[in-house]
């Protein structure tokens, strides 16, 4: 398979937007680079920019490998991608509002109603509830890959609790600290205002009538894999980082316990899944959430970001319909491609998938984090057989897509510099009519040779992402 290389063109020449970096790399002594790489490792450890891995010993914190070769995106490419992201996220929010209100898109027959209404992620408790600005996914992490000859595809939309933005910010900080000279030579679009932008968006969606809202970040706690990010964002925004046990609900109003007594909370940027938010409504065994918070939410006394029930729009069984949503709600043609997707619940598509398993990527409809997926070309015979049985037993639990020839980018590995596959997760923020994002996003890179799975839980690393200004 031929892969698109972000840095080199087909003839081995350096692409124009990587010229500056390439010159620098060639001119910089390897010892200096080795020293700087070690310095970065140490700094990340000391600062404690780590993540916990589920299934490993509790409190076991790992460093996400950071690579010093940035992923560079030329300005024009970013502008087009940004337009596509705005369009997509706008349509997804309209879809969410619609399915919890008049369900026009279902009535019009654009999406089979049972796909939405019988979806485990569809939350009937949200029906008829009006949210400020009609926004559901205030923060969306849209995973984009480049494939084939260079076109972009959306791999998935993360509308529940997308994470990774702290790595985007820390990677930039690290790059600027290690190699300030690079930033003097390149016009790299800044990203450090993300927390400001996020706070502004969160304040904008406060319940009606609240002029100076109290915003908090709700975390499942110190043992959550993304805890670093929760503390990071709370600190950068200057708001309290709370756990469920710090909050309580009285007369449909949410308060936090403070040293000076109860204090009212208006907007909660929650990093806890729907299922754990309110033990009175969802999982009764959850101790992470706040009893009664859903009633306060339904009464319009508190805003949750993201809203309850966004999972129905980023579910992999709904993903194939996103282009249709864009046409339906906006009357526009989608700018960003969807990956062609086989829905295994359809018998003829299932048959095709079963016949072509070694070429396809099979994903669990509700899976996340790179768990529960089959990458056909890289899988053993036994794995393929295991998935065949899974598919036959529960076809509606899976989708399949062609294996994309993900683009790659030169990356430092043990043997030197070698191409590794990568993706990009821009973070798209919405409040009312305004959809914004900082240039670029988080670039994740699969460090194992040939691997197409970039998730940090699967040993992926990150790179700084540069959008070059004209």
């Amino acid at each position, binding site marked *: 398979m031929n892969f698109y290389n972000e840095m080199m063109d087909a003839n081995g020449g350096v692409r124009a937007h990587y010229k500056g970096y390439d010159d620098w790399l060639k001119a910089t002594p390897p010892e200096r680079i080795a020293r700087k790489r070690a310095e970065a490792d140490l700094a990340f*450890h000391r600062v404690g920019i780590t993540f916990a891995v589920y299934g490993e010993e509790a409190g076991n914190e790992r460093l996400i490998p950071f690579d010093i070769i940035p992923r560079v995106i030329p300005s024009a490419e970013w502008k087009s991608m940004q337009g596509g992201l705005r369009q997509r996220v706008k349509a997804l929010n309209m879809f969410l509002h619609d399915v919890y209100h008049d369900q026009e898109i279902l009535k019009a027959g654009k999406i089979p109603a049972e796909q939405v209404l019988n979806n485990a992620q569809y939350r009937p408790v949200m029906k008829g509830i009006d949210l400020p600005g009609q926004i559901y996914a205030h923060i969306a992490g849209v995973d984009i890959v480049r494939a084939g000859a260079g076109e972009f595809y959306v791999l998935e939309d993360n509308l529940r609790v997308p994470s990774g933005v702290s790595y985007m910010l820390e990677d930039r900080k690290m790059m600027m600290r290690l190699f300030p000279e690079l930033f003097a030579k390149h016009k790299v679009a800044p990203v450090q205002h993300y927390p400001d932008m996020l706070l502004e968006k969160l304040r904008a969606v406060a319940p009606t009538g609240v002029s100076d809202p109290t915003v908090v970040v709700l975390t499942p706690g110190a043992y959550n894999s993304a805890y670093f990010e929760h503390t990071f964002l*709370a600190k950068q925004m200057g708001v*309290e980082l709370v756990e469920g046990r710090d909050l309580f609900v009285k007369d449909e109003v949410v308060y936090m316990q403070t*040293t000076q*007594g*109860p204090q009212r909370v208006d907007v909660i940027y929650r990093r806890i899944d729907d299922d754990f938010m309110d033990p009175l409504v969802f999982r009764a065994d959850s101790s992470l959430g706040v009893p009664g918070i859903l009633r306060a939410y339904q009464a319009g006394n508190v805003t949750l970001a993201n809203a309850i029930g966004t999972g129905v729009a980023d579910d992999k069984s709904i993903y194939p319909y996103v282009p249709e949503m864009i046409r339906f709600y906006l009357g526009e043609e989608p700018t960003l491609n969807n990956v062609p997707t086989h829905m295994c619940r359809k018998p003829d598509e299932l048959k095709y998938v079963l016949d072509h398993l070694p070429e396809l990527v099979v994903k669990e409809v509700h899976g996340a984090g790179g768990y529960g997926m089959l990458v056909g070309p890289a899988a053993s015979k036994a794995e393929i057989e295991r998935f065949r049985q899974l598919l036959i037993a529960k076809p509606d639990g899976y989708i399949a897509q062609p294996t994309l020839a993900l683009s790659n980018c030169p990356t430092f590995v043990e043997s030197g510099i070698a191409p590794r596959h990568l993706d990009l997760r821009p973070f798209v923020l919405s409040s009312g009519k305004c959809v914004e994002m900082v240039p670029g996003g988080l670039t994740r890179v699969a460090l194992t040779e040939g691997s197409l799975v970039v998730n940090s839980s699967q040993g992926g690393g990150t790179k700084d992402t540069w959008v070059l200004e004209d």
Partner: protein
Amino acid sequence: MLSRTADHLFWMSRYIERAENLARLLDVTWQMSLVPQSLDAANQNWNAIIALNSLEEAYDAKYAAVNAENVLNFMVRDADNQASIYNCLRLARENAHAVRGTITTEMWETLNATWLEAREKSFEQIMNAGVGEFFEWVKMRSSLSRGTTLGTLLQDEAYHFIRLGTLLERADNTARILDVKYHVLRPQGDEGATDFYQWGALLRSVSAFEVYRKVYRDVITPERVTELLILRDDMPRSLHFCMNGVVKTLDLIANSHSGETQRQVGLLHAQLHYGRVEDILAHGLHEWLSDFMDRIYMLGGGISKDFLVPMSEAA
């Protein structure tokens, strides 16, 4: 500030202070054991450390005999002993981790680096490098964390709860050391010659040896040591100094239901402010210190109830 945040800050600083005090006590005992003395006397000093921290049961379950090596192992690096320096540093870091959004980056990095370094040191390595060097390291790390707190943290509620934890823990430790050592050194109020080295060690364990010389310019007597550690208001590890700070800090964070706790602190403070060492000794030092420690304990409970634990009327 969130009650839980305040709770973590309070305990973070208590554990740092506890690690430091433990290092001081062990260091002094270790140095004393190098002065010629009978094996019995030496072991009695090591035994006192276990007794001082009420750890007899846990210790006996694990070690057959009381001797320098066993006690050092138990109190320095034993991961099973919740009161070991190792665990104090771990718990300080864990509490800091839970509130790393509230403390400054420098504070977090100091505590995190301390823990990462402590974790790497095995007991053998510590002993080979010289256990005294390790105690110095613990004291320096504690000083560093106190310094970064003072030098970088906004002096708002977070600072006040950290200060409160430090002072309560220190008061408790000073009282304990004095109580145990006094009775080892002067059973039944023996008026005989005092042991310069032993009293000197006690003073050194609270960094008060040079202070004593400066203040009294005279030989070391048990009465003056008692006065210095209890009543001097300018001696940073004395009970009076600690309670001065507690009273002031409580005034700054007072809320609508902390009145009773403030009254108790005021009462305790008045005793130190207007007390005389003759009266304390006449009353019986052990009785006086036991009473003081009980009241410190109650004070901790009061602070916890007033500020740190979610208020019951809320639910």
